């Protein structure tokens, strides 16, 4: 039971720190800050685990704390952190599909005419902000009027190209 309580408590504490930090100021590189908060809270929890186990017998974690307990807590918090990071990317950036569905819903029971649908869906809205994200995250750089992949960008592109090849799927997008 102790591992479950510590794991859930760590995730809740990290989320509370994240909420408070965002109330004060939303950081420039949000995903990196989310990861720093969640993994920082996990590291603190793991360092405090022997103290918690010794001083709170109701947790029923043996002292010295066995390695599988550390592994279970680290595994759970890491998995939840990564899942939240992926979800957070949809908070940071507007998904075109969700924007479209909201536009159709706003049109009311009469529906949204096909002719009006494309209005406002421009490169400036859908493509350019994502190019700026790639520049900010160091995946591409601008040089002599060209966008160039950085080594980090090449690694990211290859990861997805190989995965899509493994699936036998097309380009996507």
């Amino acid at each position: 039971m102790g591992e479950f309580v510590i794991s859930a408590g760590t995730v809740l504490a990290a989320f509370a720190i994240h909420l408070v930090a965002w109330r004060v100021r939303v950081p420039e590189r949000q995903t990196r800050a989310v990861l720093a908060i969640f993994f920082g809270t996990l590291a603190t929890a793991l360092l405090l685990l022997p103290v918690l186990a010794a001083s709170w017998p109701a947790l029923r974690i043996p002292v010295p704390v066995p390695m599988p307990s550390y592994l279970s807590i680290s595994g759970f918090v890491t998995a939840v952190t990564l899942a939240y990071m992926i979800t957070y990317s949809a908070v940071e950036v507007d998904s075109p599909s969700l924007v479209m569905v909201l536009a159709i819903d706003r049109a009311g029971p009469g529906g949204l005419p096909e002719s009006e649908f494309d209005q406002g869906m421009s490169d400036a809205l859908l493509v350019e902000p994502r190019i700026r994200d790639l520049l900010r995250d160091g995946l591409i750089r601008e040089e002599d009027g060209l966008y160039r992949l950085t080594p980090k960008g090449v690694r990211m592109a290859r990861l997805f190209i190989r995965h899509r090849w493994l699936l036998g799927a097309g380009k996507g997008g």
Partner: protein
Amino acid sequence: MAEWFSALSPVLGLALNVAVQVATFRGRPAIGLLRSEYLGFAAGLAGVMVVAGAARSVSSGAAPPVDAAFRVLLSLGCYAALGYCHFHFVNLGETARRIRLLRELHEAGGALSHGELAARYGAGEIVGKRIARLLGTGQVVLREGRYHIGSPLVLTIARGMVALKKVLLKKGSEHER
């Protein structure tokens, strides 16, 4: 030993999930990406339950039943989060604009001008692919030249994301000031 198996069961479940998803989609592409992901997730979940259950039975008597039950719950929660990550990793390759832009640059030898990049992947294709997916899954329907909401699932997700944006960022869209 049983504790080690229990702690590692989510990773074993994820491996099974990935293997079944890839094999299913490659073997029968007609099944569709989404169904192959559901099948992979279900196979991994079954794997976690078998391994975590076996670990529990091996260690029965060593730990109170409530502790063993919480350990299984922790493994299932960890697997669910890993499965969610895998689901979204697959979907990033399918739908993410940033990944597609990186692919276009990679296929062009690593460099493109702004105009060349926009010509290869622009708003027209982005909107066209998404509306086809929304119509294909019945989330949106087209009647007499007008789009209507077909199923409330994606609309509910969209509203949830707007609510989360407002809580975290105090705005409902990245384009709001």
